[in-house]
């Protein structure tokens, strides 16, 4: 019986400890942020936005022209690399800027893509979907949120946007440092971190979309770079974007010995071109 006071004390101490721990944990736990379900009014408001439906093709000839007319203000180190890449491209040895079918990333997708994209509006978000990479996708949050305190770097970064009249203003940060800032499919350098992109996207004409970009890349540019990229619209159904898996270029569809439909690797050059494995075939 003499142990009874001790046992009671231990129980009291343990109970107090658990209570204090629970209160502390409760105080430290951040409130869960909920994405609320859209209301009928939210959907109605979508109808007031400008019409960006259809399929948007990039004006590649303007991309080509801006290589000379509006080059980025590269710093000395980056400029030397770009100069070397252009020399190699001209000599027929173009550098692979996107090896392994990595996405073209932001903002390079906007700058040099050859492929179509579509733009979807839903409450609180604008989504850009592109052809080719299999993961060519930008989520632009328009629900009033800011950028996250804890970055989750990605190829396309974290984008928040708001509407100023019929112009969508987008701010993007947290792009992975490996993502190139490129001006052609053979000339681009890794941004090396801290890149930020501000875009003003708007219709310049009934079927012409302008993406005005201001790119802050302090590790490779001497000052922010401004450029406008042009997209033109198609509505014919035959131009609808279909699934595009970049890595499929490395395989051929064949039927194996078991009769199964399979993918078989194809031989490619160091430049990424498919070539016949053997020199010839009998006719």
């Amino acid at each position, binding site marked *: 019986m003499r142990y009874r006071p001790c046992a009671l004390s231990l129980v009291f101490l343990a109970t107090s400890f658990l209570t204090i721990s629970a209160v502390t944990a409760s105080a430290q736990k951040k409130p869960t942020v909920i994405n609320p379900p859209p209301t009928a009014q939210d959907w109605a408001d979508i109808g007031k936005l400008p019409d960006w439906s259809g399929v948007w093709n990039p004006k*590649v000839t303007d991309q080509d022209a801006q290589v000379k007319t509006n080059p980025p203000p590269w710093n000395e180190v980056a400029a030397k690399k770009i100069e070397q890449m252009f020399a190699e491209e001209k000599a*027929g040895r173009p550098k692979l800027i996107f090896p392994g079918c990595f996405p*073209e990333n932001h903002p390079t997708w906007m700058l040099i893509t050859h492929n179509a994209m579509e733009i979807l509006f839903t409450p609180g978000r604008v989504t850009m979907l592109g052809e080719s990479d299999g993961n060519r996708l930008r989520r632009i949050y328009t629900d009033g949120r800011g950028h996250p305190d804890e970055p989750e770097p990605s190829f396309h970064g974290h984008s928040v946007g708001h509407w100023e009249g019929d112009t969508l203003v987008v701010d993007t940060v947290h792009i992975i440092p490996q993502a190139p800032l490129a001006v052609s499919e053979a000339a681009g350098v890794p941004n090396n971190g801290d890149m930020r992109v501000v875009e003003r996207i708007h219709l310049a004409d009934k079927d012409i979309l302008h993406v005005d970009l201001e790119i802050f890349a302090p590790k490779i540019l001497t000052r922010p770079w401004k450029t406008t990229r042009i997209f*033109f619209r198609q509505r014919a159904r035959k131009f609808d974007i279909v699934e595009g898996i*970049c890595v499929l*270029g490395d395989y*051929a569809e064949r039927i194996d010995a078991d009769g199964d439909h399979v993918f078989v690797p194809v*031989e490619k*050059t160091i430049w990424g071109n498919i070539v016949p494995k053997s020199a010839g075939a009998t006719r």
Partner: protein
Amino acid sequence: MKQLVKPALALAALCGIAAGISSVAAHHSTTMFDHSKTLTIDGTVVELRWVNPHVSLSVNGTVKGSEEVAVWVMEMTSPGNLVRAGGWSRNAVKAGEKVQVDFSPLRDTSLKGGALKKVTIVATGQVFTANLRAQEMPGLE
């Protein structure tokens, strides 16, 4: 039997099943092709690969000015761009069809690859091109 062996051999020539293949998936610049040159091949379509990032057309035939019969692989832009700029579809050119292809060859002349400029289907005279910069305008039909 000979009729079956020919396409099988041609298809096999396109696959690098052997160890040590170079596999570089990427969308890339096209300056590895010598765009200052245009060669013409007359032959039979082995395969049209309708995939991103580059559609390819393989043709078993003879390049003008040469006696060698060989499979050549012609590269193009993406399926979406070919539909828009060249009027293509995945069934535009079929295996077994006789074609004539104008192309710019790889600068590495040891490889039988090229950038397709134009393909003409011999039986119909139908022509498909592959210049994605050719029609940069909205509202195409």
